[in-house]
């Protein structure tokens, strides 16, 4: 890979991330809502406690969070602390930092989502490839319509149904959480604990798998139909190759190219794609954290989560661009 191309691509990624972060910085600051005041208003609503000298307190906190400075200085501060990896303090759990809270939630999210993403990619792509293959049995082709419907339903809704029928009515699996709180005081590296975590993860994973497997299947089917019509597949048959060889090396190998791009993007968005389901199951990942932050008007946590999702997507898009020429020899490292 030419170094110049690599550098150009990295520079472009930094530019995109910078643009997105800047957008996120200015968006809320154009809004009339004062986060500190909101926090006290929320406190008052929930506890009835109202500080007598509210205005002074707000000022103090604004100084503490640097909200009193002119916009451009705030921007410079914000950017420089980001560069140091400092995402600021959480308002709701002060004095814990945003970075700390995210670091605690992230492993759960990544653990759940990376497994489901890989599983759905494999299952979905397989179904899609078979659905477009002319010699497949009719019932595989008939799977397409149900998958269209399944793909359209948000995992959250499926999650609700699963909780009700499987966890609540049938009592087969726990209704939520990441592990049984009574049995374990906290995460530990033991077999019973991991087993317990797995049991808790089945339903959230299943809701995600059911609703995204259609996405992969439909994408693969669409591409598969196109590749089916290509001359090189026909010529491979003219050459008298075995069906197995045509299927894998001539058909799947070409049809899967866009799927691989999509897989990398899906990995980029694993931090965000499970948010609702995590929240529904009380799974201690970013979703639950985000929900708590929204309830508490903890804007710094919300931004922090926004920030790492952006970073993850941008990096994975770059990785796609860097790796794609290895998958498709027609693409050379010339685009920027």
């Amino acid at each position, binding site marked *: 890979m030419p170094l110049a191309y690599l550098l150009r691509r990295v520079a472009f990624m930094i530019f995109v991330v910078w643009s997105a972060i800047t957008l996120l910085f200015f968006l809320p600051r154009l809004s009339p809502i004062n986060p500190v005041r909101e926090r006290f208003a929320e406190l008052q609503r929930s506890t009835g406690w109202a500080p007598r000298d509210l205005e002074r307190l707000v000022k103090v906190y604004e100084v503490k969070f640097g909200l009193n400075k002119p916009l451009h200085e705030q921007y410079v501060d914000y950017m420089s602390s980001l560069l140091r990896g400092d995402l600021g303090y959480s308002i709701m759990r002060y004095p814990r930092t945003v970075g700390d809270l995210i670091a605690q939630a992230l492993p759960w999210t990544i653990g759940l989502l990376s497994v489901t993403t890989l599983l759905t990619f494999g299952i979905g792509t397989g179904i899609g490839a078979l659905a477009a293959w002319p010699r497949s049995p009719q019932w595989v082709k008939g799977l397409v319509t149900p998958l269209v419907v399944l793909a359209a339903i948000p995992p959250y809704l499926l999650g609700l149904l699963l909780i009700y029928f499987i966890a609540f009515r049938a009592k087969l699996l726990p209704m939520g959480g990441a592990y049984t709180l009574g049995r374990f005081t906290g995460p530990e590296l033991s077999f019973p604990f991991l087993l317990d975590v797995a049991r808790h993860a089945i339903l959230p994973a299943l809701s995600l798998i059911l609703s995204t497997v259609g996405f992969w299947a439909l994408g693969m089917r669409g591409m598969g139909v196109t590749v089916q019509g290509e001359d090189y597949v026909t010529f491979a048959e003219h050459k*008298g190759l075995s069906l197995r*060889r045509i299927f894998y*090396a001539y058909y799947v190998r070409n049809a899967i190219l866009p799927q691989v791009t999509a897989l990398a993007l899906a990995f980029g968005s694993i931090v965000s794609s499970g948010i609702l389901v995590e929240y529904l199951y009380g799974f201690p990942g970013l979703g639950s954290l985000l929900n708590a932050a929204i309830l508490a008007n903890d804007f710094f946590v919300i931004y922090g989560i926004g920030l790492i999702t952006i970073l993850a997507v941008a990096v994975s898009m770059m990785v796609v661009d860097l790796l794609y020429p290895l998958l498709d020899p027609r693409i050379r490292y010339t685009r920027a």
Partner: protein
Amino acid sequence: MTLQESPVLRVRDLRVTYYTDAGRVTAVNGVSFDLAAGERLGLVGESGCGKSTLALALMRMIKPPGRIESGSAVVRTEHGEMDLLALDEESMRKARLSVISYIPQGAMNALNPVLRVGQQMLDALQAHAPHLSRAEMRARAEAALASVELPKDVFDRYPHELSGGMKQRVCIAIGILLSPRVIIADEPTSALDVVVQRQVMETLQRVQEQLGAALILIGHDMGLMAQVTHRVAVMYAGQFVEVSPVQAMFTQPLHPYTQALIQSLPRLDNRGVFRSLPGVAPSLLRLPSGCVFHPRCAQVMEVCRREPPPAVHTADARFVLCHLYGDDENVAPRATLTTSPQEVRR
């Protein structure tokens, strides 16, 4: 030439039908012909006349809604004769490339873009000659590349790194990899410039002669046929209307359609003369009664509208499907080049 005596391919009464939404379409309607070893047969006709369907039928590559209705296609190999249309799926798969091979139209997309050229050749060898060692396979592939005058390094290149002419040569190299008895080339040069076309055709001709295989060259360019083939079959609406040695075809065409076709061609000696064939090719969905060509025929007779024309084999080994030649054995053409279709038009 004594080509008729020991045909390497004998096709009889081949019929292919497509069952479309709009109705049944007989794309190949009872075609019979013989092909001698080493012979080059041209197959010409307007688009949609069924010439590509015929080729696909011989390869047993007709896909639904198409169906081979009847016929036989017997190939003579060193192991005896086999009817391609009667083989089971697996035997047919093995026969492809090793007995009968197909060089596709538009070689631009015929090669898998993500595999190196060499791998695509090895795939073919693995499918048909798995007993060979990897080194032997590679040697065979490289020999094939050399015989189509491609440099050795093409083996390790990707298709997109080759020019159009080079890709077409790779397809030819693949086509001859297993020394087939019959090679079908479907418009192999239609996307190429004339100079490259000539180079590719000369290569194809040379390797075909070296193998002693028969070649069916499908195309619409009569000029190419005149330069390359021994014999030309003219197809119209799913039927062969005339099969003649190339010399006779161009100097004394028998069928009115062939006559009109050849008259319409621009040559060096008829500059500025424009004779076109009136009308459009009939829809295969609704063929005219009697002779399918009669609505466009300049020499149409009453019988042509009613009855299908007889198949006439002349003494000089020509074939024509026309009422003009129905009666006598030794055909003396009633219409020669001096009376052109245009001049006798109403």
